[in-house]
């Protein structure tokens, strides 16, 4: 019975192990590079949020600044700050060169 109890999974602190061979292209690397930059966050509903990425966590919950909500290419709302619940996120795309 030398089996120690594994630590509880802590998704917020989750960082995937670096793949042995691959270059630095993992989701974690991407996110480090994109914080503070303009991004497009598309939800599964098709609604887009364009703004500056403040931060995010392991659930893909997102904090955006200077956010514009786009529906079918039309701005439908503006928010100074916005918290987006991660389960709605389809993708996060860089809107300026990284």
């Amino acid at each position: 019975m030398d089996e120690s109890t594994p630590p509880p999974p802590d998704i917020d602190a989750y960082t995937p192990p670096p793949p042995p061979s691959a270059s630095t292209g993992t989701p974690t690397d991407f996110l480090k590079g994109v914080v503070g930059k303009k991004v497009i966050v598309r939800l599964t509903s098709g609604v887009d949020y364009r703004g500056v990425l403040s931060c995010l966590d392991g659930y893909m919950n997102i904090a955006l600044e200077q956010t514009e909500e786009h529906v079918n290419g039309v701005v439908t709302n503006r928010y100074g700050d916005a918290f987006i619940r991660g389960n709605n996120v389809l993708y996060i795309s860089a809107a300026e060169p990284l």
Partner: protein
Amino acid sequence: MDPSSSGIQEPFDLIRLSLSERVFVKLRGDRELTGVLHAYDGHMNLILSDVEETIMIVDPIEGGMDGQGTVKVAKRKMEMLFVRGDGVILVSPPSRT
């Protein structure tokens, strides 16, 4: 590490800083709420007071080319409300500028 300007380390900080403030909440099913945020948890379950709910009811017109229909807006007020977190899409705190 170095979040821009506002000193927010993680997304939930935005919500924490909005406690006792009036927030805007966008929900699944074309619903929106504004209310004073009293409590939240990691699921984004929320307790709001002095709430106004706005419901967008879309009647798609048959044969409409652009997929648009007439939108009816219904509003109602609630004194105190529990919001289940899985319905939450977006929370926007009052502007801190």
